[in-house]
């Protein structure tokens, strides 16, 4: 079985592609890949490829945050990206992925949402981040979160016509103010996987299938932890979790360098 072989390799401290256990594949970030979006980015990690696009529109604020803009993150596991993906309503994995990306951004207030008010208590900007998987060769979570942050950095606020109550458009294109989205931080998510006692990063899809458990850890620029989510059927000890947090912060800096 391929899964058993992958487990054996990790337990021996090696990997099929020769990487060290804590080594990422090559990360490439390309911003501004979608002209119709207010912000966009394509991230590749090895053969894994995702695109994040941001659309902004004016909306009523949520009752508990009347003077803040809104953030909405969705993800689409496009069936061509992995034979396991199915068309139709989002799978629980897809829902979880976008919610974990959302929390990484939201919890450290990466977007300065207080600066996204058009009319106080009435009209604010909604920032919709949509993440589409193009090819899944493992580690979609880290790729998705990096793409979301890169797209936020690329995002420019559109022009808004208060009289007409709409975003200004010319043909199919939104007219930009040229003003970047106000950002406070650059959170990065790193998922630490585990097989037996071994911790490893950036799995391929085969390594992911062999993994016992994983924990996604979002960290901020100052090295604080701002969101975490454990997945998989295995368990982590306290010692392993503390070590995973160290690894995530350290490697997060490396990943961030790709932005």
């Amino acid at each position, binding site marked *: 079985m391929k899964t058993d072989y992958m487990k054996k390799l990790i337990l021996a401290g090696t990997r099929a592609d020769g990487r060290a256990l804590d080594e990422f594949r090559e990360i490439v970030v390309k911003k501004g890949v979608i002209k119709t979006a207010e912000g966009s980015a394509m991230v590749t990690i090895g053969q894994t490829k995702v695109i994040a696009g941001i659309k902004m529109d004016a909306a009523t604020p949520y009752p508990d945050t009347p003077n803040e803009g809104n953030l909405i993150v969705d993800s689409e596991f496009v069936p061509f990206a992995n034979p396991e993906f199915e068309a139709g309503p989002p799978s629980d994995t897809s829902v979880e992925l976008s919610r974990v990306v959302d929390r990484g951004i939201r919890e450290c207030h990466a977007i300065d949402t207080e600066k996204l008010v058009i009319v106080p208590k009435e009209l604010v900007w909604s920032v919709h981040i949509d993440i589409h998987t193009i090819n899944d060769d493992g580690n979609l979570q880290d790729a998705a979160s990096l793409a979301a942050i890169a797209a936020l950095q690329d995002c420019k606020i559109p022009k808004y016509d208060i009289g007409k109550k709409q975003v200004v458009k010319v043909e199919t294109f939104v007219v930009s103010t040229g003003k970047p989205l106000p950002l406070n931080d650059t959170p990065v998510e790193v998922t630490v996987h585990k097989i037996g006692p071994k911790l490893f990063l950036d799995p391929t899809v085969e390594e992911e299938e062999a993994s016992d458990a994983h*924990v996604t850890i979002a960290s901020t620029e100052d090295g*604080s*932890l701002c969101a975490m989510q*454990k997945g998989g059927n295995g368990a982590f000890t306290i010692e392993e*979790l503390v070590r995973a947090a*160290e690894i995530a912060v350290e490697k997060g800096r490396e990943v961030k360098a790709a932005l």
Partner: protein
Amino acid sequence: MSKEGAPEKLIIHGKRLDGRKLDEFRPMKAEVGVIPQSKGSATFSFGETKAIAGVQGPGPMHPKGLQEPTRTKLRCHYFMAPFATSERGRPGRSRRSTEISKVIGEALSNVIFLEDYPKTALDIFMEILQANASTRCAALNAASMALAEAGIPMRDLVSSLSVGKADGEIVMDVAGAEDNFGDVDMAVATVGGGDAFVLLQMDGVITQSEFKVMLEMAKNGCAEVYQRQKEALMKRYTAEVSE
């Protein structure tokens, strides 16, 4: 980023707004065998947060295409009743409940001998009847006991709780204003009161050293929850024998 309606302070002279000490739980209640029609059932509450869980199966898996040849398909269904919150919630599945159901399923998969029932489906239904934070933890605690009553072979019970940070202090069993206006909420679950963490979800900003302190507090707290769960199971069967 203060939200509307936030109290000025969440901790005053080392006491929390509801009078608890930093490392104190709300009153916990656990009862097994509460739904006669269910194969196994239980309730668990942390103060005002009340969860009830029932197990159905293992039974036939439909559609057959989704059968797993070597193990049972564990399906967890976490729901929040529309009347469980101050503002009526929308009934049925939400993105939130989908995610919670997934992580609860993963936590329980760690202890259930899934391979004992190949090709079948095992369903666990959890309802939050009244919510005041830590609902996923109460649901998981109830589910774990319900599975035990149903006689599903398990390595041990899963015990869950939340720890958090409010006004800069690490606190046990987040509730009320701490949930809405506190800095951090971390839900965890361990196996058999030990240090195998099978569920971990953290929101908010903490340092690495705070994380370690929270994990230690959570581990000790889960051991206490584990005792309550065991007592409730013992009580269920003690009663049966004495009848």
